[in-house]
């Protein structure tokens, strides 16, 4: 337990924090291994239980990337909101002279400048206890009376009530409340959306069994559509083909129930497959290749999301992908995202092609989805292999469903869309957000950023790639380019 004081609304407030504080001592010249060695949680105001230790470790990745902070707290409360102090100070209406004063008297450095005179400053790494230093600095600056406001910068973990079903009563992939699973085992969408929700100049193509382009959650986003199966003048699916509609919703869903990760970008729908009555998809290699070419060339798609695959490789498809990757976006290259597959086996075609973004599925516990993972879905597991780039949420994903009662559910929304099919659109959306922030990046750099900014997951590179998608970290990295 720890008492700290700060000013809020002109009054000095004394607040009590409980939980596990964890301080990472950053010292220049120290190896990563040494830093990990001193990364030990300290129990404050109670015994340090094994659960708390685990929780602290889990949250550490999230908060470090979220806040620039190196001191962490694992919330012990199971309901309500946990407020997490950091070593940073948020200053509003800061004059240059006050920022200099903070630097000279408290050793603080600017880590971010916001709009309208907002500045985020961070306590020095060698201050011993960064949180205490931040609180002291904020209080001192406020008491000088020369700024609009100065207070410690908090992170908040909001626990949503009433979520105990295994199904996706929330969009846990975007913001995981830990019920079920682990708080923070998500793509950090809420933080990412403080940077961008996507630019309408960016287009994501969903190549699938069709997209219900008249769906009220999607129709406003549709930029172009084409049918490479039946030659219709739209890309809407037949019968109960709902897969593509769910994929599209993960990217651009407009409503509160199905918020897309990149809802500001535009959708290109290409129908390349149809179902038979026995649970199989029918593809035509040439038509699929033509669809790929249409997506990057005619429909000017920046990102191609592909939740399909299987069978022997086909040059005609590989070459179309390669054209998209090298000639799309006026030579900067379209980003090709491909689902790894759900057989818990080696990644199959086209996910095994080089220079593609191949995506596996993680679950609510921030683990690779396997037939024996905690989620209880024992009928599928994420594919693995050298081709795997990264993981993204792929279990019980709430997404848009085709209209009528022939889809996965009877309404406009399905609560439990599954598979690497649902993981891939998350990464496609993340790529689109990166291009919204930095449209000048080439596709190779977009892939690098996505891979370099992941959160680590248990398992080696062959099983989990570089780790789980962290969109916020990716956008921050993109912004620095």
């Amino acid at each position: 337990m720890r008492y700290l004081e700060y000013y809020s609304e002109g009054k000095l407030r004394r607040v009590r924090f409980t939980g596990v504080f964890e301080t990472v001592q950053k010292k220049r010249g120290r190896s990563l291994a040494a830093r990990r060695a001193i990364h030990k949680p300290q129990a404050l105001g109670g015994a340090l239980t094994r659960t708390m230790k685990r929780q602290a470790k889990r949250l550490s990745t999230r908060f470090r990337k979220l806040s620039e902070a190196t001191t962490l707290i694992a919330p012990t409360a199971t309901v309500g909101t946990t407020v997490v102090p950091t070593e940073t100070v948020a200053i509003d209406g800061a004059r240059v002279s006050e920022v200099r004063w903070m630097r000279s008297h408290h050793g603080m450095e600017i880590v971010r400048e916001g709009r309208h005179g907002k500045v985020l400053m961070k306590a020095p790494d060698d201050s011993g206890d960064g949180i205490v230093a931040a609180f002291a600095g904020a209080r001192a600056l406020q008491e000088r009376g020369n700024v609009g406001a100065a207070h410690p910068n908090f992170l908040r973990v909001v626990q949503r009530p009433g979520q105990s079903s295994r199904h996706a009563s929330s969009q846990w992939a975007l913001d995981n409340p830990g019920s079920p699973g682990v708080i923070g085992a998500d793509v950090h969408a809420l933080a990412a959306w403080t940077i961008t929700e996507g630019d309408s100049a960016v287009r994501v193509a969903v190549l699938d069994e069709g997209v219900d382009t008249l769906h009220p959650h999607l129709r406003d986003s549709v930029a172009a559509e084409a049918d490479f199966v039946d030659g219709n003048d739209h890309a809407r699916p037949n019968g109960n083909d709902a897969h593509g509609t769910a994929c599209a919703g993960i990217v651009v869903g407009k409503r509160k129930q199905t918020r897309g990760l990149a809802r500001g970008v535009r959708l290109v729908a290409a129908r390349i497959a149809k179902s038979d009555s026995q649970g199989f998809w029918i593809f035509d290699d040439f038509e699929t290749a033509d669809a790929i070419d249409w997506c990057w060339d005619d429909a000017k798609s920046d990102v191609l999301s592909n939740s399909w695959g299987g069978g022997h490789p086909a040059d005609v498809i590989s070459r179309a992908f390669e054209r998209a990757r090298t000639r799309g976006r006026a030579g900067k290259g379209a980003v090709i995202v491909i689902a790894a597959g759900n057989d818990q086996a080696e990644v199959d075609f086209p996910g095994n092609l080089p220079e593609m973004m191949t995506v596996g599925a993680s679950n609510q516990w921030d683990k690779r989805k396997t037939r024996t993972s905690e989620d209880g879905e024992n009928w599928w597991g994420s594919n693995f292999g050298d081709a795997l780039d990264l993981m993204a949420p792929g279990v019980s994903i709430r997404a848009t469903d085709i209209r009528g009662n022939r889809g996965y559910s009877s309404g406009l929304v399905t609560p439990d869309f599954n598979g690497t099919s649902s993981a891939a659109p998350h990464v496609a959306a993340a790529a689109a957000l990166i291009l919204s922030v930095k449209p000048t990046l080439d596709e190779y750099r977009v892939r690098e950023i996505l891979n370099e900014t992941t959160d680590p997951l248990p398992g080696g590179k062959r099983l989990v790639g570089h780790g789980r998608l962290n969109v916020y970290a990716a956008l921050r990295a993109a912004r620095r380019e």
Partner: protein
Amino acid sequence: MNEDLYYYVGGKRIALEFDTKHVAIDLDRIESTALREEIEAVLEETEETGKTTRLRRKLHLAYKKDVRQGLRTRLEKTGALQPVFRHGRTLMVALPEVRIEVEKRKEGSSIEQMFGNEGPDVEIVNDQGNRLTIRPMTGSGLDALRLANEVEETTQPLMAQARFVRVVPKPG
């Protein structure tokens, strides 16, 4: 027959294995009205039970056991059966079409010569300069596979591939 059971991907041979349970029937290749009516009746009946799948336009995939031997033989003689291959749980049906891509096409190049008087009997379906789509006049998917292999082995273009329709397990 066996030497044809492969195709090229990135210049490498990929072995193909015939599927023993299915037949792909191309109704467009049937000239006899009686034969056409007979097989259409079989397809209609099996489609209702979900045993037959329409792959594209007039091309259907059916279980071999649902098409009796005598009818299969007559269909084969008319060239209405297209080859079905299996790779794991994926079925691949070869269609009578080949797509060829070359780096730079010159008049009188080896690919051009191949389709001249000396070459196989083909129809050029689409000609976009460096991208060419051809059909063997026999209308056979197996001939398309052979043709693509021949082009690959004699001229090493960027790509020469027969057209496949895939039937893959549906994800999600």
